[in-house]
């Protein structure tokens, strides 16, 4: 009835959606709609990812062979520095929460919006301000500190460091705003019946992430501020020439930056749980264990920063303790991996593109996690520290974990975001290219590192030439896969098949209770939640079945369709009938 009213209020027959409602540029820039803010983040982050990715390609090209060179050593230092800073602080940290979290979280918990929509918009502007400062840093001088800004080198560099650390200070606030907003939203905005044990696991992942964002980000903020003061006033906190302590900087930096890797990976875990459950048609195995292991990782993540500093000269006792606590992180991570695999066991696995990314994630993240344990071992790390092994490990976790999950999630929610389907065949090809390209690029780096190739080097000895060449070729395969994704994503925006309301036959609210393209207010009526997020056996409305009252079954639901293969047409939204 409401749907009909909405439709009638439109001049044409199309139902009102968030995309055809308030469409001018000004209305986009001042929108408080979490879905539009998510899209604004998506576009900005895609630009950052493209630029930082091209910088990575430049680094790989430079390292292709010992005699081949496309840039000077100083340009090389700046290139890998900007690649690291942009990817870490301006891309991966905000990526999943700001894009998919913003778009999906309120839909999944049955809310009209996040708790503080204005703060949400502010976070995007703060992020853009951080981006502007980054550009300024590039314009005013050379930045060659690496993404870690270790003192004393960084405190003796020029003004570029001031602007760059300022950019990180500012964009940190965007991260804090998002985290704060999500925690309050999850606590206070859940639909009736949406108990904590019925929260989709993506929401649990975002919750754990938000805790880390709120607790860790202020520390990097003040650290960057102190670094700026060190440069401008020479306050002598970090620079040994002034009596300061460079190790203190490392402690402060890693107190944020280690938890920050959990900011990057925890929401990816959340996406994985959604993908694996939906595409295995199976209740997730060990719901509580997955949910609480995210929180456990968030908490343990604050106690391991010292494992980045085994060779810094910190006390041996603290190195041992940090090493032991680092092993502990393996437990909740392992719990997740086993639960995901158990979920697929005897499930009806449907190998669509998002699921391919989920399977890639399991493979890549396991390598990333196990190499993480290896470098967490005190004795091994002394050998592997500052080699390509660490570079390989980091990329297996961040790119192979976080970015792959983001890609899977983008494919999964693409129909809901844009109302269009992407080309499934091209999607599968791209997923294959990314998987192969990624492994060729970074597995060779694990080997290189174990043979002693140090990171951040501009030149290297001949015996590493072959592996560097393979790694560079892999990076081209990886890039071709990613450009293919960009290509068919843009294509689908204009020519893609119109998406149905629930193309994956998923059972969470954003698919079952929200129109193909969501209404500006998300739900036409407040949903009442009566089952868990992965209770497919109770989801009559998804697989046909009678349902009751206002269930959105498509009416074609016979008992046969209940056991139908995943292609079974999911329920059509009522709006379509009136259209």
């Amino acid at each position, binding site marked *: 009835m409401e749907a009909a009213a909405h439709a009638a209020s439109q001049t044409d027959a199309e139902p009102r959606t968030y995309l055809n409602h308030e469409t001018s540029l000004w209305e986009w820039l001042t929108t408080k709609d979490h879905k539009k803010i998510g899209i604004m983040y998506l576009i900005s982050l895609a630009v950052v990812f493209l630029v930082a990715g091209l910088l990575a390609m430049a680094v790989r090209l430079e390292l292709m062979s010992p005699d081949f060179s496309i840039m000077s050593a100083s340009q090389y230092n700046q290139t890998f520095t900007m690649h690291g800073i942009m990817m870490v602080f301006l891309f991966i940290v905000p990526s999943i929460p700001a894009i998919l979290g913003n778009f999906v979280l309120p839909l999944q918990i049955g809310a009209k919006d996040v708790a503080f929509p204005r703060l949400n918009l502010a976070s995007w502007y703060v992020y853009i301000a951080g981006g502007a400062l980054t550009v300024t840093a590039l314009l005013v001088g050379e930045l060659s500190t690496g993404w870690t800004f270790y003192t004393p080198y960084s405190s003796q560099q020029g003004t570029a460091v001031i602007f760059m650390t300022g950019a990180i200070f500012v964009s940190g606030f965007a991260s*804090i705003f998002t985290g704060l907003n999500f925690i309050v939203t999850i*606590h206070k905005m859940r639909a009736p019946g949406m108990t904590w044990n019925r929260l989709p696991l993506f929401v649990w992942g975002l919750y754990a992430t938000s805790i880390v964002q709120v607790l860790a980000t202020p*520390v990097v903020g003040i650290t960057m501020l*102190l670094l700026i003061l060190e440069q401008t006033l020479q306050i002598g906190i970090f620079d040994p020439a002034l*009596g300061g302590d460079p190790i203190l900087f490392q402690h402060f930096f890693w107190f944020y930056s280690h938890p920050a890797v959990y900011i990057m990976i925890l929401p990816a875990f959340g996406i994985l749980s959604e993908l694996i459950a939906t595409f295995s048609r199976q209740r997730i195995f060990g719901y509580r264990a997955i949910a609480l292991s995210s929180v456990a990782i968030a908490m343990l993540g604050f106690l391991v920063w010292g494992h980045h500093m085994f060779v810094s000269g910190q006390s041996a006792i603290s190195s041992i303790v940090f090493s032991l606590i680092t092993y502990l992180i393996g437990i909740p991570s392992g719990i997740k991996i086993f639960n995901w695999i158990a979920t697929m066991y005897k499930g009806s696995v449907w190998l669509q593109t998002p699921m391919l990314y989920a399977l890639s994630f399991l493979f890549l993240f396991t390598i990333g996690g196990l190499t993480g344990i290896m470098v967490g071992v005190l004795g091994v790390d002394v050998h592997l520290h500052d080699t390509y092994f660490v570079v390989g490990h980091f990329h297996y976790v961040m790119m192979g974990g976080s970015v792959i999950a983001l890609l899977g999630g983008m494919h999964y929610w693409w129909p809901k975001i844009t109302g269009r389907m992407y080309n499934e065949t091209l999607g599968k090809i791209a997923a294959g290219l990314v998987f192969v390209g990624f492994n060729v690029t970074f597995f060779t780096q694990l080997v290189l590192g174990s043979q002693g190739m140090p990171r951040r080097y501009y030149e290297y000895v001949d015996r590493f030439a072959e592996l560097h060449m393979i790694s560079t070729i892999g990076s081209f395969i990886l890039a071709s896969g990613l450009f293919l994704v960009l290509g068919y994503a843009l294509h689908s925006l204009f020519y893609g098949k119109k998406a149905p309301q629930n193309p994956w036959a998923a*059972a969470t609210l954003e698919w079952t*209770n929200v129109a193909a393209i969501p209404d500006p207010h998300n739900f036409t009526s*407040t*949903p009442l939640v009566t089952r868990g997020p992965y209770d497919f056996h109770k989801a009559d*409305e998804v697989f046909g079945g009678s349902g009751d009252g206002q269930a959105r079954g498509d009416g074609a639901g016979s008992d046969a369709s209940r056991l139908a293969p995943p292609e079974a047409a999911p329920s059509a939204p009522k709006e379509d009938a009136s259209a």
Partner: protein
Amino acid sequence: MSTETAPATTESVETEHDHHPPHLQHHFVSSEQQFDSAKLGMWLFLITEILLFSALFVAYAVYRNWNPMAFAEASSTLDWVLGSVNTIVLLTSSLTVALSIHFIQKNDKQKTVISLLSTLVLAGGFLVIKYFEYMAKFEHGIYPGEAFAPTGSGYEYLAAIPYVPQFFSIYFVMTGIHGVHVVIGMGLIGWMAWRAHRGDFSDEWYTPVELTGLYWHIVDIIWIFLFPLLYLV
């Protein structure tokens, strides 16, 4: 999650929408939900404030632990009398801001405005005293960082002690950032006083006053820790 929509719930939501109070934003179901959300959000923000200062406290602890004598000497040059007066001023301002919440809950507009304005005056007083303290140090060449060059009796001997500059760097950075928070708080309190005067708040809705009060208390609490660490210990 379900797909059922309970007709009853929907109805009740709709009716509330028809005549909801002006302060209620559309995405909240009730005023209580909105108030609880705002308060939880503010508490989370206050946690980030504490963590922001925590790194400074750690820096203080580290350098003090390494150079206890230098810190004792440098600390003794701070004026504990002015520091105590400032502590009392800030504590009183916390009382007045708490009173303003008490009065708005009783719907007493005039007294709310008066308590907010007294908070503003006390906060201003704090900054004035802080200004004189800073000036007294600058006169003797006690600057943060590189410019540190103590002159005059009672200060010259500091130049010979290593790590005294670190104490003053930490002192200026901590009290400076705290001072910035005081200035922001004054802006907020002034704005609240203006809005209260305009009649925006009542016993039904006074969330911004309450949140400003919470913020002001954290500014106060941080000073409660800064004062003994820098002046007394």
